[in-house]
Every structure is written in structure tokens, then in C-alpha cells.
């Protein structure tokens, strides 16, 4: 859209920010992004996001790690091939500890990779429409409208109790 203007409403109250997110579309404006200084369940609910797929990455990592741990322990034991205290070379009971530890480790790897993939990080877009106060004590709601309606959008934010910042 060639004549699009980005305007951010900045709110000190997360409830107001969440309410504005819900009302933007009805007022005829296009919601673009929300910035929160803290993890906010109310804003998350207002955004009505679909459940992420990060959990599947974590699960896959955990299952992979469990078997990798066993495989590593078995591989190294077989390389040494040394009987200690009459125990079998491949002893699954103590190897479970390695399997467990690798489950945790690879679950974390899976989780981080899933987060990067699902969030498409690193993402440098949108920095020009960011306000540093959103890392302090403000909740920012970024919306877009036709340039001719910028005044309406500013009024809308101000009526809802927010400060306004217009991005050129």
C-alpha cells in the first residue's frame, strides 16, 4: 500500500493495550505488531495466535537425544571393551543416566532451534517502527492506516488512553 502510515499507541496499562488490539480491526485499522516489556498473557490472548510448533522441536530433540545418549555410551564402552567389576560391557541400567542427560540437552537444543525457526529469527525488519519505551514501562500497539486516516487513528489511540507516536 503506497500511502500507508504507521502509528503506535503507547499504553502504561497492559489491559488497555490488549483491549485496543481487539478493537482495532472493528475501527477499520490494520493491526501490525505489539511490543511488551514483559510476557503478557492478556496481550497474548488478545492477539489470538495459533499455538506454536516449538514443542514439537523440543520433543523431537528429546527423543533423538535419548537414543543418542545410549548410542554414545554403548559406542565408547565397546571401544574400551573392558570388563569392570564383572559388569557386562553394554550395561543398560547405568547408560540410562547418559540417555537421560542427553534427552535434556537435546530437548534444549530442539527448543532453541524451534524458537529460531518458528520465530524466523534473526529478524531485523520492523526496527524502524519500534519505540525504546516498549523496553521500559510501555506496551506498544503498532497499527497501519491510509495516510488520509492518520488523524483518525491517532484520535482512536488517544481516546483509549494512549500516547501516540507516528512513524514517517
Amino acid at each position, binding site marked *: 500500500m503506497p500511502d500507508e502510515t504507521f502509528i503506535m499507541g503507547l499504553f502504561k496499562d497492559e489491559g488497555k493495550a490488549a483491549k485496543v488490539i481487539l478493537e482495532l480491526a472493528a475501527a477499520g485499522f490494520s493491526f501490525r505488531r505489539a511490543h511488551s516489556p514483559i510476557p503478557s498473557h492478556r496481550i497474548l490472548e488478545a492477539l489470538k495466535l495459533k499455538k506454536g510448533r516449538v514443542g514439537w522441536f523440543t520433543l523431537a530433540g528429546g527423543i533423538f537425544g535419548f537414543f543418542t545418549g545410549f548410542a554414545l555410551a554403548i559406542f565408547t564402552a565397546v571401544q574400551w571393551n573392558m570388563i569392570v567389576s*564383572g559388569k557386562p560391557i553394554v550395561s543398560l541400567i547405568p547408560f540410562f543416566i547418559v540417555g537421560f542427560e542427553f534427552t535434556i540437552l537435546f530437548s534444549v537444543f530442539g527448543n532453541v532451534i524451534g524458537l529460531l525457526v518458528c520465530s524466523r529469527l534473526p529478524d531485523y525488519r520492523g526496527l524502524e517502527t519500534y519505540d525504546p519505551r516498549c523496553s521500559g514501562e510501555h506496551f506498544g500497539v503498532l497499527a497501519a492506516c491510509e495516510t488520509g486516516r492518520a488523524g483518525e487513528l491517532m484520535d482512536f489511540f488517544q481516546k483509549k488512553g494512549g500516547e501516540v507516536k507516528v512513524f514517517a
Partner: protein
Amino acid sequence: MNSTMPSVQAGGDAVPQRSLFTLGAFLTVAGLVAFLAGLFGPHPQRVWQAFLINFLLWSAMAQGAVLFSAVTHTVKARWADPLSGLSEAFAGFFPLSFVCFLILLIGRNHLFPWLHADLHGKEIWLNIPFLFTRDGIGFLILYGVGWAYLSQDLKLKLRAPGPAAGLRRLLAGRIPQTDADLQRVQGRKTLWGGLYCFVFALVLSLIGFDLVMSMDPHWVSTLFGAYHFVKAFYVGLGALIILAAIIHLRRGSSAGLAATHFHDVGKLFFAFCLLWADFFYVQLTVIWYGNIPEETHYVILRTVTPPWNALAWVVFIVCFIIPFVVLINRRVKTMPHAMIILCGMVIIGIWLEHLLLLGPALNHEAAELPLGLTDGFVFIGFMGLMVLAVAYTLKTFPELLPPARQGAR
């Protein structure tokens, strides 16, 4: 009633009906008849074994469920408020549990294999008078502290004398009138709650050592007591989830229990599923590494030797593998029907686990598992007692039910 008292709406249609008492009485009588019939049958030791297993299981369930309220109150976990009242209802089983403990004394000749054995100096600890005295005192302290905690909680919840005014008055005592009273009662509740957590660990450890581990008097595992009380909390949470799910199914969304409550308590159940398996594994690993015959024989008999080996796998799958895999899923934890089935399965699994721990010591050279109809009937007899105890407590103190609410999801 002071205006600062919490507003509680009694549970309406969730208050137990007469039919529930009839059901509980019927189950109890069925169990009692089977128990008496078995007692005078050819194998009385089998009936006493079933009695001991069920006593341990159902007592642990009640003790563990009450622990939920004490723990969540002590750590100020507000998410658990609607569930904590329900968990306190299990305290109604405490007197019955104590009576059942005393009944064990009658069957002592069938229950304690060490009674006429050479104990190599352990006679000082393992003798009937001392065992029943210390365990009896332990139970009295545990149940006394549990009821004291419940009494303080009821003082905060009761609004009017209501039904069975005598018992209500006895437990609740003086209802706080001022803010200062309220603060004092809340302080006492926290004190008794913390004390219950402490006594729970001590007494359940003692019971684990005395009534389970001592059946094989020459075998020792120092972690066995902790394993026993972790297991008690595990089944206690299972019983609490079943009760909450039944009430939710009866009253629907107005039950005061939201999906988030089931999700949260389901996570706790999941955590204790892992902890139970962990306490099993840490004992197994130490015994495996040490490889001392005095220790390994206990594990080998139960995990390698038929007919117990099959039972060991069943217990492991039912109490750990299935709950672990199923409870990874978030949605299942919020489905009351599914959770009733899962928790019921775990409770039966722990029943079988008690059989696995006690059975080999009480049935030497068994060619097949000592399981029969009588075991099932004694189980449902105890279930009937639990139904009666919980239903009576909830009927007497309907304030323990979650307050009805509008707009629950």
C-alpha cells in the same frame, strides 16, 4: 460472620446424595463379606495380605491427598485454592485408616514373616509390641496434625453451624470474628500445614520401613522410606484428580473448576510420576553397582524370577510408561474423563506394586501370582470405605467443595 470472611457458596447439587452413601455401603459390605469368608477359608494369609496392601494403598491415598492442600497452602500456591478443599475431604478416611491399622494386629501371625525368624540382632526393632506402638503413635500424630490443619482451614471457611453441628463445632471451634482473629487462624493454619508436610515425610518413611521393607528383614534400602512417601503423594494426587473430575462432570462449568486447574494439577501428577520412577531407579542403580547378594536378591526375585517378573513390567508400564507418554500432551490433562481413567489406572498400578513388594515375602516359592477374586473384593471394600468417608466429610462440610462460579471455561 465478619465481613472479611471469604465468601463461600456451598456446593449445591455436588453435595453427596443418599445414593452415593448406599453405593459406598454396598461396596464396603461386599468387601467385608469377602474378607470374612477368606478369613475362615483355607488361605487366611492371602486375605491378610490383601488387607495389608489395601490398607497401605488407601491410607496413602488419603494422606497424600491432604498433603496437597498442606503443601500448596504452605508455599502460597493460590492456583490450587478450589482443589485444596476437595483434597482436605480425604481426611475423613483418617479414623478408618487408624482402625484398619489396629486390625492388622489381629493378623500379625500371617503378616510378618520375621515373627519367628532369627533376626540377627534386629529383634530390638522388629518385634510386634514396639512396631505397633511406634507406628500407632506415628499415625496418631500424622492424623492429629492433619485434623488440626483441617480445623484451622474450616474456621476460615465455615459460615453457619449447618448439618451435623456437633462435629462442625468440634472441628471448626470458634469462627473468627475480627481481622486479628482471622490473621491468627491463618497463621495457625500455615503452622499446622507445614508441620503436616514434615510429619508426613517422617511417618510415611517409618511405615514404609516397618510394614513393607521389613517383610524381607535382611534387605535394606535407606531410600525406601522416601520412595514410600513420594508414592503416597503420587496416588493422593491421582485420587484428588478423580474426585475433582467427578464433581466437574456432575456440575459442569459451574463447578468452580476450570480447565486450568486440571491442567495444573495434571502437571503436578506428571511430575510425581517422574519422581516415583526416579526414586525406583536411584535405588536400582545403587543396588546394581554394589552387586551385593544381600541386596540384589530382593530385586532379582521381583524383576527376573517368574511369576513376579511379568508383574514388575506391568507395574512399570502402568505406573510410569503410560502416564509419562500420555501426560506429555497438554490437552489430556484438561479432560476429566481421560484423567479419571489414567489416575484410576495408576492407582491400580500402585496396588499391584504393593503386591510386587509384599507378595514374594508372603508367598515363598509361588508358582503363580497370588491374585484372586478375594483380592478384588477387598479392594472394592476399601474403595467403599473411602467413598463413605469422603462423601460424609463433604456432606458435613459442604464448604470444602469449590465455590460455584459463573463463566467458567
